[in-house]
């Protein structure tokens, strides 16, 4: 089935057993993002030294697994490392399936390579990453690039 590319075991694992889920204190920046077309929501909290990234949300397997992977990949990294990871993930998601992901940088995030071939689901995968970027900015940490926003 074509869906093998979308629903990788890694994604389903993160969905069923999310890492680091739940909002925690203390934090320095928080952002709440919604996907207005489907109603998915996520709140991300960030400590300015990135020692804690916590989140909670409602949404599909792709958006929730993406949040779990984000937590796993970025928590405890330097802002430069976080920026590199963020950039790589956004590039992968916007690559329409043409970008070869680097497992060294993206870890479990490479499982999302297949999602990039489903344009309707790219924004699901990006939702936590965009919320993270805003939350980080509010904590005084600049990470990531602004992807072109598609309705």
């Amino acid at each position, binding site marked *: *089935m*074509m*869906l093998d590319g*979308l*629903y990788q075991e890694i994604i*389903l694992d993160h969905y069923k057993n999310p890492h680091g889920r739940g909002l925690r204190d203390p934090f320095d920046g928080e952002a709440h993002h919604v996907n207005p*077309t*489907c*109603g*998915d*929501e996520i709140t991300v909290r960030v400590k300015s030294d990135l020692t804690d990234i916590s989140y909670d949300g*409602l*949404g*599909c*397997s*792709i958006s*929730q697994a993406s949040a779990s992977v984000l937590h796993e990949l970025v928590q405890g990294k330097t802002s430069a490392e976080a920026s590199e990871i963020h950039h790589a993930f956004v590039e992968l998601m916007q690559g329409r399936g043409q970008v070869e992901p680097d497992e060294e940088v993206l870890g479990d995030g490479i499982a999302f390579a297949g999602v990039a071939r*489903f344009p309707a*689901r790219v924004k*699901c995968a990006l939702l936590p990453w965009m919320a993270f970027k805003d939350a980080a900015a509010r904590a005084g940490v600049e990470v990531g690039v602004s992807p072109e926003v598609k309705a």
Partner: protein
Amino acid sequence: MSFDVEQVRKDFPIFQREVNGHPLVYLDSANTSQKPVQVLDVMRAHQERYNGNVSRSVHTLGTESTEAYEGARARIATFIGAASPDEVVFTKNSTEALNLVAHSAGQHLRLGPGDEIVISEMEHHSNIVPWQLLCERTGATLRWFGITDSGFLDESNLDDLINERTKIVSLVHMSNVLGTINDVSRIAARAKTVGALLVLDCSQSVPHLPIDVRELGADLIAFTGHKMLGPTGIGVLWGRFDLLEQLPPFLGGGSMIETVTMTGTTYAAPPARFEAGTPPITEAIGLGAAVDYLTGLGMAAIHEHEQAITSYALDALTSVPGVRIFGPASPVGRGGTVSFGVEGVHPHDVGQILDALGVEVRVGHHCARPVCARFGVPAMTRASFYLYTTTDEIDALARGLDQVKKVFG
């Protein structure tokens, strides 16, 4: 003449295609309907042979185009039981029709603080936001009916909600999420008693039910072409002529004027008053052809077919463990739009797996977020049926849901 769904399907070229290697199972007609070849042919023929601008040309093409455009208006008027074609205003869609009413009726009624507008929790966003905007502009107050647990309008506070301060009541006739068909007779009577206008959003009812505006009790109704076998870009506002005649224009421009000087303008009579600019001519003609097609089959026969499909679907869905149906549980008082949840699986994922099997459903909040909130979910999966839907397609949906549960089990 009995209704033959297999014969009907032959008129729809799209059913020849496959989706992801499976025969197309189109269960998203509440979103937009598919188009029969009879509609497509009329639109193509118009563009190829008769294209000219309407209502302004003395030449042959312009005259023929105008006749076709006005002919479509007349057939739509007959289709809904309007007193005359002049009661049929062409708009872009239902949304534009409702915005037109909010602007023009709001101005006509000189709404201000202390006045009230009543809607319901069951509305599509297009019947919420224009009224919120009108209230922001005028200081009027927005109030609303709730929804009962079984998915019907909660009329328990009808007399309080619609009172002497109420100026406009605007309600959905058939819910695009729950499928509920609202019996508005009590509300219409109450609105009449207090002198409020009753507007009905008939986007989901006119395509599926026999509708006669003389019996509906509404002053104005809105519906859209693309949900009733017509093209996108064309919708209808029907209004009682004596009311339309009193309403000021919405958009200004060509075609809607009587005379223009540099210091002022007088306006054309309805419906032209509300049709500024070159209208979607081919689309209006296409909608006329759609109405001919529906009339040929008979709306009563179409409705009967959809009731049978809905009954079959409700049975099929309730027999899938973990599926919860939102809205009326039996075919009584509802149409062929069924929203449901699959326990533990987000609707996006349900829709994605169904799509891989060629089954096209809608997922999300269906532009009616308050309905989802009322039932405590962020989103729903919706299967919606039409005259071309078969029981085989419902079986494909049920098999798809088994697959969904396998992937996420």
